[in-house]
C-alpha cells in the first residue's frame, strides 16, 4: 500500500519504512502519549493480516535464542520480521533490564528486521499494555511476520492469547511430570508446543508427555496442538518449528476460524479499553462531584447499602456524555 495524503506525517514516515519514526511512535504508545492517537487511527487499516507469533514459556527455556534462530530461518526464506520482546519491570523501582537483545544474532545492516524491547510496566499476564498497538505499528511498517516474546511467568501467562494468531509455548526437558501438563493456564493456550534444549537428556519424554496430552485433550476450535523438538545449540528443529507455526496459520484460514478468533480478540480489546475509560471516569467523579460524595456519605452512615449506591452510580455513568 502507498501512503495516502490523509495520514499524519509520522504515519507516512512509518509506512515509508523510516525506522526512527517507527521507534518514536512505539515510545509514544508505551508512554500513553495522546499525540500518537491520530497515527494509530490512520495506520489501523494497514494491520490485521500478518501472522503474529507469540512465544512464551517459563524463564530460561531459551525463548530469545529460539526467536533469533527463527528469524534467521525466516530471513533465509526472504520474509521480513518485526519483534517485540517483553521483560518484567521491577514492582519496586519501576526499572528493568531488558536483555533479549543479547541473544539476538543478525547482520547490523539488515533493514528487514526490527527489534524492540519493552518493559511490562506493571501489566500482568506477561504482555505489556502497549504491545498490541506496537504490533500494529510493526505491521503498518510492512513487516511480513511479527514475533512477540513475553516474560515467561508460567501458569498465569495467558495474556498472549489476546495478541497472537499462533501461540508457541516453549518448554524444556525435566520441567516436571505429566501432572504439570494438566494444570490450567499456559498449556491451554498453546497452538504449538516447543520442547527446546532437546540436545539435553529427557527431551523425548517431555515430547511424549506433551503429545499424549495434546492427543487426549479436547481440541480447541478443532485444532490439536503440535509438538516440535528444537535445539539452538546443535541446532535442530528450527525449520520444523516454523512449519508447525505455518500449519496453524493455514488451519486458521482453511477452518475459517481466523475471522471469528480475530473478532473475539477485538471484543476483548474494546471491552478492556472501554472499562479502563469508565473506571477512570468513575474514580475521577467520585472524588470531584458533590452528589456522589453525598451518596457515599449515606452509605457510610448506613442509610444506603453499597450495592444500591453502585447501581445508581453505574446508571448515572451510563447516562452522562
Amino acid at each position, binding site marked *: 500500500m502507498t501512503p495516502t495524503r490523509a495520514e499524519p506525517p*509520522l504515519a507516512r514516515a512509518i509506512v515509508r519504512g523510516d*525506522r*526512527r519514526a517507527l*521507534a*518514536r*511512535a*512505539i*515510545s*509514544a504508545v*508505551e*508512554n*500513553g*502519549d495522546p*499525540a*500518537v492517537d491520530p497515527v494509530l487511527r490512520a495506520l489501523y487499516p494497514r494491520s490485521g493480516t500478518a501472522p503474529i507469533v507469540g512465544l512464551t514459556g517459563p524463564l530460561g527455556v531459551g525463548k530469545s535464542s529460539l526467536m533469533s534462530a527463527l528469524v534467521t530461518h525466516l530471513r533465509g526464506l526472504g520474509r521480513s520480521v518485526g519483534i517485540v520482546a517483553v521483560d518484567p*519491570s*521491577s514492582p519496586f*523501582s*519501576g*526499572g*528493568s*533490564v*531488558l*536483555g533479549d*537483545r*543479547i541473544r539476538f544474532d543478525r547482520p*547490523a*545492516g539488515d533493514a528487514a528486521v*526490527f*527489534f*524492540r*524491547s519493552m*518493559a511490562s*510496566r506493571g501489566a500482568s499476564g506477561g504482555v505489556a499494555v502497549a504491545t498490541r498497538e506496537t504490533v500494529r505499528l510493526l505491521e503498518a511498517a510492512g513487516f511480513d511476520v511479527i514475533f512477540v516474546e513475553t516474560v515467561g511467568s508460567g501458569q498465569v501467562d495467558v495474556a498472549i492469547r489476546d495478541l497472537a494468531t499462533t501461540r508457541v509455548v516453549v518448554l524444556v526437558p525435566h520441567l516436571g511430570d505429566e501432572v504439570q501438563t494438566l494444570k490450567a493456564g499456559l498449556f491451554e493456550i498453546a497452538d504449538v508446543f516447543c520442547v527446546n534444549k532437546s540436545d539435553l537428556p529427557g527431551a523425548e519424554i517431555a515430547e511424549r508427555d506433551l503429545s499424549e496430552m495434546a492427543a487426549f485433550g479436547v481440541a480447541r476450535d478443532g485444532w490439536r496442538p503440535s509438538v516440535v523438538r528444537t535445539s539452538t545449540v546443535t541446532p535442530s528443529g528450527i525449520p520444523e518449528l516454523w512449519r508447525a507455526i505455518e500449519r496453524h496459520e493455514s488451519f486458521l484460514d482453511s477452518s475459517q476460524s481466523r475471522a471469528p478468533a480475530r473478532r473475539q480478540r477485538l471484543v476483548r480489546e474494546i471491552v478492556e479499553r472501554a472499562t479502563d475509560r469508565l473506571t477512570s471516569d468513575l474514580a475521577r467523579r467520585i472524588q470531584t462531584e458533590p452528589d456522589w460524595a453525598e451518596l457515599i456519605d449515606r452509605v457510610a452512615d448506613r442509610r444506603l447499602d453499597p450495592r444500591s449506591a453502585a447501581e445508581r452510580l453505574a446508571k448515572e455513568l451510563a447516562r452522562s456524555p
Partner: protein
Amino acid sequence: MVARAKSAPIRVLIAKPGLDGHDRGAKVVARALRDAGMEVIYAGLRQTPEEIVRAAIEEDVDLIGLSILSGAHMALFPKVLKLLKSEQGARIPVFAGGIIPDEDARRLKRLGIRAIFGPGTSLDEIVRTATSLARGGA
C-alpha cells in the same frame, strides 16, 4: 514529532563495543540504573558500532552507555559517535566507563562523549550523571 513525557522511564542502552569479554562493570552499572527506575536495554558483549547505533535507534533510547576495558576506545567510540550522527541520532548523549587514560578521556570528551567514569566511581555518581544527561542536562 512526538515528544517524550518527563514522567516516562528513562531508556538507556548499555553495550560493550569490540572484542572485550569483561562485562562485570557493565552489568553492575545496568543494575544500578535499573534500581534507579530506568529501563536498561542490555546489549551485552562484542557489539560493533553499527549494532550499537542500530539498537539505540530501534529502542529509541534517551542515553547510551559504553563500557570498554580492551584499550580500543579511541578506535571504537569515535565510530559510534560518527554513525549516530549519520543516523540522526546525534542528540542521544553517550557516556562511557572503563579503563580510559586521562589524556584519551579529554580527547573523547572533545569528540562528544559526555561523561567518562573510571575505576572507583561511585554508582550514585553514575546514576546522577546518567539521569541528568538523559533529561537533557550536562
